[in-house]
């Protein structure tokens, strides 16, 4: 399977699987190794990285919502130089392309980050996260600044408001692909402190909202690959994005809740789920497969016992 997730150019990014985890979900690549086989994903997207270090947000950062959660981290990171220094070796060893998510707050920082990444063999593409309050002019400057300073493809993750207008600005400035969208912002009361907290909203309800935006973008920019993200909790959710025209899908918060779901979706959309009955490969994983094997062994043993009882003896 070959999926081109950026506009065709000499450096187009081609993935073997259309499923990835969204930025910020898997950290910098060293956190989920025990629970998820990252090589089964299409690509690895890093946590957000800025040119200069960012401190974590203060106060309550996680607020439970009905069937969802609000998270406000403040995009903490040690700055692009320290992050590259710490994780370069790990990313070089990864068997899937690495896409660095860059915090696109201003053109100067985006330009500097792109120049820095251009020289990095460990990173194959950039995903530029556009600020929710950015104007089309700012988006044009930020995306243009990054795209002019690197030959690597620049994906643009759009906010969930004014998406189509901002997408036009991003495409005009040279975006290699569009990611729709960043989780919308909301405000909720923290049940412990009683304070109102603003952050990004995650949960299954995000999917219908983002699916609509993906369809709009696909219809409007047929030549630009669109990656769908938001509310994917099952393989059917991911397939819905593909059916709506997305070239690939990013999975977010369900990974925190049920880490294996990410791998399951990736294997399913990558055509890798093969049940035992269909001749599963020994290294293939499937939820419940251990149980299936145990039951199969027990059934085989029972059958053997029954057969041995049926076998006539003494003749």
């Amino acid at each position, binding site marked *: 399977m070959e999926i081109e997730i950026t506009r065709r150019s000499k450096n187009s990014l081609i993935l073997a699987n259309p499923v990835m985890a969204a930025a*910020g*979900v*898997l*950290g*910098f690549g*060293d*956190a*989920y190794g*025990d*629970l998820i086989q990252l090589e089964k994903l299409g690509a690895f997207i890093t*946590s957000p990285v800025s040119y200069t270090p960012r*401190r*974590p947000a203060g*106060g*309550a*950062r*996680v607020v*439970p*919502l*009905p*069937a*969802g*959660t609000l*998270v406000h*981290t403040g995009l*903490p990171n*040690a700055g692009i130089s*320290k992050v590259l220094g710490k994780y370069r070796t790990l990313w070089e060893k990864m068997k899937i392309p690495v896409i660095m998510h860059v915090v696109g707050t201003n053109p100067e920082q985006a330009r500097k980050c792109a120049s820095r990444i251009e020289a990095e063999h460990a990173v194959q593409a950039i995903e530029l996260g556009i600020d929710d309050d950015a104007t089309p002019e700012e988006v044009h400057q930020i995306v243009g600044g990054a795209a002019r300073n690197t030959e690597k493809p620049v994906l643009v993750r759009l906010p969930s408001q004014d998406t189509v207008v901002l997408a036009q600005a991003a495409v005009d400035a040279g975006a290699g692909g569009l990611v729709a969208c960043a989780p919308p912002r909301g405000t909720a009361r*923290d049940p*412990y*402190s*009683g304070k109102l907290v603003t952050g990004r909203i*995650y*949960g*299954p309800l995000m999917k219908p909202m983002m699916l609509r935006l993906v369809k709009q973008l696909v219809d409007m920019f047929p030549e630009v690959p669109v990656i769908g993200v938001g509310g994917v909790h099952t393989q059917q959710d991911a397939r819905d994005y593909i059916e709506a025209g997305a070239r690939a899908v990013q999975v977010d*918060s369900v*990974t*925190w*809740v*049920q*880490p*294996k779901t990410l791998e399951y979706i990736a294997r399913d959309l990558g055509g890798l789920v093969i049940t035992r009955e269909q001749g599963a490969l020994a290294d293939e994983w499937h939820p419940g497969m251990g149980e299936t094997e145990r039951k199969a062994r027990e059934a085989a043993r029972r059958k053997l016992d029954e057969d041995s009882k049926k076998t006539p003896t003494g003749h």
Partner: protein
Amino acid sequence: MFGIAQGALGVQSYEELALFGSSFSACGLIRKYSFHTNDEQTMREYTGIIERTVRLNEHYQHLHLSVEGLGSDLKPGQSFLARRMPERWEPYLREQWWPVDLKTDEVVIERPANILYEPGETVSLLGIIGQPYRYKRTLRNVLLIAYDTPPSPLVMSIPLLFKHHVSVTMVLSGAATQYPTNRLPPELEVIQADDDLGWTNMVMTVGWADQVFVVVRPDDEMERFERVWKRFSELRAGIDKNYLFAVMQTALPCGVGACLACLTPLREGEMCVVCTQGPAIDMTALPFSS
């Protein structure tokens, strides 16, 4: 493991009791901006079955979970992120479940009594979360403080400390006074403090303790820990490293150090990922304004 060699801190006696494992990393002792330290401990998903529920009083209950393959890996200070099965999205994120007792293939979890759990119910447990508490080798007396919150994160350490002939005193303040103490070991001295963390003979208790572990209500942990810090600063001439520990109960969306929602700033620009380096943070490393 993000290791700190023995003696590297210049304080040779501050080691862990062998019983509690050999790791030597915790927030407040790490010198670099690091996101992940827990390389030796394998994170996995366990399936637990609620064998029985025991109601302690109108506020708390114990869930006896049989957990296959858990072994003796679980140490005081460590926890799970739990999710009830079959899948439901309320609550959405996994909840942090603190074990209070560990038997062979059975772990006892403390939960609020107002949530209904049924025997036979299956639970998905992601773990093991966090680092074990670090104790001084020369430890003789430990003070545990629960300030306006149940002492659940501290309870599992009590029998192990007694087994090593360490005296333990627990102070319950504010809402923690509702905690049922009749199931705790009889050797444990329990002090019922007032709502503002005051009790008789405070100076003597604080001076007697070799190490102190504090849990506070998680509404504004830093503010409450700062209150504890101020109180101890008034009662002692100085607070050394490895003496006073804040046991954090920060919300943990992922539990593996990926989402960085639990990243806590320390002094001098350092950071601590509570889910992988906590829950115990040396209070001398916390950036209190006072």
